[in-house]
């Protein structure tokens, strides 16, 4: 796990805090900071809000927030807290949403060539295809899929107040390819090992700019066999890491993927799809946040 993290830091590619195969649903990094292990999603600041509004002994502590300059609660009768800051925030979000919608390339997501069926569940997407009885599923999550370098450049461009210099934000998610062979009477493969999971990433976008490093458009990071179906991830199954892998074996794995439609064209289209999805989700998030902040 730590080895994966150090690699992510050195190559400026975000991966999840566990191994590449962080549960099948590719749990995003941020969830670990927002979710308590004992309950559902609990905001970290909800406890302090409770303390502020409580009239019992616990409310002896008066946080500075109530006495700070600029805090003027607005009464609208809805029972929620509204401040001038919230109003300004809401106005800012309205403008931001308008701007983001202006630069949005399309309301619909780009199509993948090759007959891939898209299934989306929030920020997670699956691309599914069947080839001669084999089912190929590519799973990715747009959370934490923007390489840090793009974010830094965007901030620098904002600092220079030059919109023309702002680079296009590109989402380059890690993705897992699951290949499931249908059980055959003469098959030598045990049914419990029917699914091959190949974890991939997009190194090309880890480094940006002129004279970019000559890296493959996509690369394989890990390979593992897992039981078929939605069952617990088998931690005791061997996971092949490509860091120190024989290069001939690596090329065979790449050819294996290419034969199943996961090639450089697929990787390029995946980036387009993921970028559009990420932008959609970002705008939706801004709209949710705007609704949350404003008076309903």
């Amino acid at each position: 796990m730590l080895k994966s993290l150090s690699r992510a830091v050195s190559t400026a590619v975000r991966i999840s805090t566990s191994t590449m195969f962080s549960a099948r649903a590719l749990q995003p990094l941020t969830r670990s900071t927002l979710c308590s292990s004992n309950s559902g999603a609990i905001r970290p600041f909800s406890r302090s809000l409770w303390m502020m509004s409580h009239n019992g002994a616990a409310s002896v502590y008066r946080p500075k927030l109530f006495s700070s300059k600029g805090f003027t609660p607005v009464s609208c009768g809805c029972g929620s807290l509204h401040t001038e800051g919230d109003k300004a925030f809401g106005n800012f979000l309205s403008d931001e949403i308008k701007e983001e919608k202006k630069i949005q390339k399309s309301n619909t997501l780009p199509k993948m060539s090759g007959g891939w069926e898209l299934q989306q569940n929030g920020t997670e997407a699956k691309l599914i295809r069947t080839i001669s009885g084999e089912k190929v599923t590519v799973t990715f999550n747009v959370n934490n899929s923007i390489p840090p370098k793009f974010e830094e450049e965007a901030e620098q461009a904002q600092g220079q107040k030059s919109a023309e210099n702002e680079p296009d934000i590109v989402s380059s998610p890690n993705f897992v390819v699951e290949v499931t062979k249908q059980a055959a009477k003469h098959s030598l493969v045990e049914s419990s090992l029917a699914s091959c999971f190949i974890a991939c990433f997009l190194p090309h976008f880890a480094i940006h700019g002129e004279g970019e490093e000559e890296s493959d458009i996509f690369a394989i990071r890990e390979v593992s066999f897992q039981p078929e179906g939605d069952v617990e991830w088998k931690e005791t199954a061997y996971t092949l890491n490509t860091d120190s892998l024989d290069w001939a074996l690596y090329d065979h794995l790449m050819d294996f993927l290419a034969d199943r439609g996961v090639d450089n064209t697929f990787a390029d289209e995946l980036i387009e799809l993921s970028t559009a999805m990420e932008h959609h989700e970002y705008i939706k998030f801004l709209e949710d946040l705007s609704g949350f902040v404003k008076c309903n």
Partner: protein
Amino acid sequence: MGVVLRNLQNVVPLRRARLRKDVETLRHILGIQKFDLGVICVDNRKIQRINNIYRKKNMPTDVLSFPFYEELRPGKLPCPLYRDELNLGDIFLGVEYVMKQCQQQSQDLHGILTSVTAHGICHLLGYRHETEEEWKEMLQKESYILNEFNRFTGRQLVPLTKKCSQDG
């Protein structure tokens, strides 16, 4: 030490394992297994850009070689003192350019790519084809390599030097 193979293009479907196997056979024939070698497959856009930057020729081509050792005597293997100098350099294969030629001449892409790679390796080993004498020397070397390759594999590859003189 080995061959670093990269595929930076999506125009031509490439069989990486096959290309690697052929390159390994070429290395074995030349006795250069201990040296690292880079083979990078690119499309017309990229190879044209590189050709323009380094040779001032704004057009795509089939192969561009970037030797690690720039002053090698043809055919004389380097004797580096340090491990990280066990490197011959990089070969950029213009696979889209080669593919178009193969389609016009009804030839096997991967066979031609192997011939092109042999040509590129000769450049990394100091061979040139700017004069008549250099051209003859390089053709002789390429013919030897591919004859040995054909003997090992049963294929029938022919030297590239016979066909073109645009690469570097």
